[in-house]
């Protein structure tokens, strides 16, 4: 930002109310030592430090009632002298808020977590490296070699179909089966967010290579896929249940299972490969409570924390915590379908060009 601009903007703030700016920061220097500590007394050190700091703030995209509230209760039960509060927003909002706080050097968050938070925070240069021994319980492919993020929960993507509108023998079982003329105008996908259409496009590009993928997209565009413009992947599944769209592409594979258990006419169908992503956790630069931040990060990745997420219908990243039985059938390894893990790094490299493909062919 150039100086004149900075001045105008500062004037704007002064117009709003005139008062002196109180400087923050100062602990950033030692934060690095705390967050990257491998010391044998690490546990003791961060616990004592967190108790001195007395509070920690989590920004998360997880559901409040089933996940954030029990997580907060459990954390404060275990560490009564550290007061934990949370703010819930979507990934894009978390990043907007974090980057605004970072620019103003007025950082409220200590830890941020959500699907896509890792890649966007890394891209924006908001994240600082941290070490937690708990990642060792996670499969290697879900870890960040640069230590900027850790995986908190997994998501698997599939199609959802209405079982009354799509007879069992006609359910498309592969991406190519979606090109059958009978599905023209009957496929819908979630438009306008990174975890919607671009993820689908990116997965096909990585699985088939750009050239073959381009041919596939041409044919898919001829199917006149319906752009579902607002609302979440979950509400798109609800529209499939209502019979509005027979098939939805690229939805969270476990959502249809939850509704199916209640008797709804919906199911999910995995396709080779099954795209998967990780919800990721970062520690922003310049935070006020580094001890408490790493204590909370440890807690979320611990068996206890992961169990709370599993109880809230998420898929844990630890191999030693099982997801809910009712949801396990869509885990690619169990279903015998290959998984394609889209790491934050991969998504960062592909999303922008995938968006361009969508703009050109599907809008």
């Amino acid at each position, binding site marked *: *930002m150039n100086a004149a*601009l900075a001045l*105008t903007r500062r004037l*704007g*703030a002064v117009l*709003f109310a*005139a*008062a*002196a*700016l109180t400087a923050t920061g100062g602990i950033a220097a030692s934060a690095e030592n705390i967050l990257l500590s491998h010391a044998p007394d690490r546990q003791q050190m961060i616990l004592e430090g967190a108790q001195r700091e007395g509070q920690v*703030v989590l920004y998360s995209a997880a*559901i*409040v*009632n089933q996940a954030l*509230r029990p997580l907060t209760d459990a954390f404060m039960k275990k560490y009564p002298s550290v007061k934990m*509060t*949370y*703010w*819930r*927003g*979507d990934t*894009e*909002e978390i*990043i*907007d*808020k974090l*980057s*605004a*706080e*970072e*620019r*103003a050097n007025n950082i409220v968050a200590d830890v941020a977590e959500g699907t896509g938070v890792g890649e966007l925070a890394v*891209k*924006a*240069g*908001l994240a600082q490296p941290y070490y937690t021994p708990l990642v060792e319980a996670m499969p290697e492919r879900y870890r960040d070699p640069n230590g900027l993020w850790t995986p908190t929960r997994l998501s698997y993507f599939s199609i959802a179909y209405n079982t009354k509108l799509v007879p069992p023998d006609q359910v498309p079982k592969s991406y190519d089966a979606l090109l059958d003329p009978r599905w023209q105008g009957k496929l819908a996908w979630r*438009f*306008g*967010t*990174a975890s919607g259409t671009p993820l689908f496009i990116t997965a096909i590009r990585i699985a088939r290579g750009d050239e073959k993928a381009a041919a596939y997209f041409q044919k898919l565009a001829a199917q006149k896929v319906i*752009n*579902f*413009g*607002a609302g*979440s992947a*979950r*509400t798109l599944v609800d529209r499939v*249940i*209502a*019979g*509005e769209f027979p098939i939805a592409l690229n939805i969270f594979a476990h959502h249809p299972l939850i*509704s199916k258990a*209640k008797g*709804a006419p919906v199911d999910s169908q995995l396709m080779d490969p099954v795209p998967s992503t990780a919800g990721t956790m970062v520690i922003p630069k310049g935070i006020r409570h580094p001890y408490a931040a790493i204590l909370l990060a440890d807690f979320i990745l611990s068996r206890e924390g992961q169990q709370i997420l599993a109880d809230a219908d998420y898929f844990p990243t630890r191999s030693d915590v099982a997801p809910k039985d009712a949801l396990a059938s869509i885990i690619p390894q169990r279903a015998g379908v290959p998984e394609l893990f889209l790491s934050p790094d991969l*998504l960062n490299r592909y*999303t*922008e060009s995938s*968006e361009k493909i969508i*703009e050109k062919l599907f*809008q």
Partner: protein
Amino acid sequence: MTVQSEALTAPGMANLTAMMRLRTVSPLVIVLAAILLALIVPPALFLIDVSLHETLPDGSFGAFTLRFYRALFSERLFVSSAVNTLLYAFGSAAIGIVIGTIQALIAERTNTPGRKLAFFAAVVSLGVPHILYVVAWLLLLGRSGPVNDLIQLVLHSPQGINVYSIWGMSLIEGVGFVPFTFLLMSAVLRAMDTSFEEAAIMAGASPLRAFWTVTLRMATPAVCALALLGFVRAFESFEVPALVGLAGNINVLTTTIYQAVHRTGMASYGEAGAYSICLVGIVALLLFWQNRLSRQAHKYQTITGKSFRPRILDLGPWRYLTAAVLTGLFLIVTIVPVAILAFTSLQPFYEGVSFEALGRSSLDNYRVLLGPGSFRDSIVNTLILGAATATFVVPFTALCAWLVVRRVPGAALLDHLATMPLVFPALILSVAFLDVFVNMPLPLYGTLISVIIASSVRYMPYGMRYAYSGALQIHPDLEAAATIAGAPRAALFRRIVMPLLTASLVSSWLVVFLLSVQVVALPLLLVGPGSEVMAVTLFELWQNGQVTELASMGVAWIALMTVVSTVFHLLTRHQQLAA
């Protein structure tokens, strides 16, 4: 700014204007303008910045560029989007104004049985969060909705209606606009001296002709205010274009532009900023045109020193027809969407309306709702937010509107400033305010106060349009009389203008209250941990929840808003009667 000589017809007017013109720009105008500037300039600066600079990955501004403005006009879909936007804006504003005016005429000027229900209907519809309102209409008119089921049953044709079209968009947005029109028109009609109508009828005009040639003509400024509001609203609206338009492959400017926001994976508000800056220009033109219209203000001044009682037209047996019209509108605007939400809220999942589905009804969704968290924690914050916003906006805009209508030097600026936020798209306004508060020296970031300030700015235009239409009706001779009797200006405003404006102000307060408690995008980024407001919870359900849970939340919300509005109505009715 000149006062045209034709306006100087009333005795006393000359004195008053002469007195006001003595001072060049009144200090009061300066103070009000300063407050408005302080509120509006910071987010507006952000919009300008964002439209003129590259946004770097960390959200800061990079090099100067005009490419967003170029991109805006060279978008592949620009021409078709612009045409669609115009159709949609005209269509929805027309539908909203026609239905709302008919409702208001019947409710205020005839002896139709049950006419008081119209007020209730408007308030209930305003209480429905907009996004739920759209969902309800889609559940109703969608491919698997009861309307299409019925068409197929009766006509035996597989082809039903397709709601994912321009007319579907206009209908849904237009019907959603009806409560605004109704409340404003009925306030205007209530305060209108009917002696002109009586004269027309005495001169042999039929009541219908008198309505058409006199009443409606006199309400022109109100209709213009509504047209402005409805038109710009459609230009800025997002829910209907995104949910209805996109699914039918109909692009309007907002959807084309919002697509650009997340195109690169990182949020980039450049094009959205450029779009809203262009809209500021369009609105300035519309306001200029409206301002010219109000130069002939004396034509529309219907509140004079004479006492009057609004004329209630005895329709005889025809009143049952108007009752049927009113009931029909009540059904369409309020009952049907609310009923479909209520039905959905009882379902474990929504699979169309059928007896089979009725058998699956349970209160499970409400149990989730009333459990710890979702509803209870945020309710107090939400009511504070709505009441504080409305209580600030309403008297503030009343004062501004009065000064504008009285053509106090410099006051036209107040109108432009207070109306400008109408074109700031909610999505980008929240980012702008985030930027303002997080950088502010005062520790307001994350507090409820910051949300109140932001929503005051957002809903200022609504307050302004309501107060403006009301103020335009007041003939200056009352004020002139008070001035001659030696009343200071503050007393003049408080004791004469405010009471005369009551009908408009009550509508305005309710509208601002109901809008500010349900707005979603704005508070989301501004609240901090632990100071959630209701709409944020609602938004979370919208993002992660199931349609059925969302519907139960909506129904509970509508019930609560109905209670709040009814209490408010009962409390203020007494005052209105006194005024």
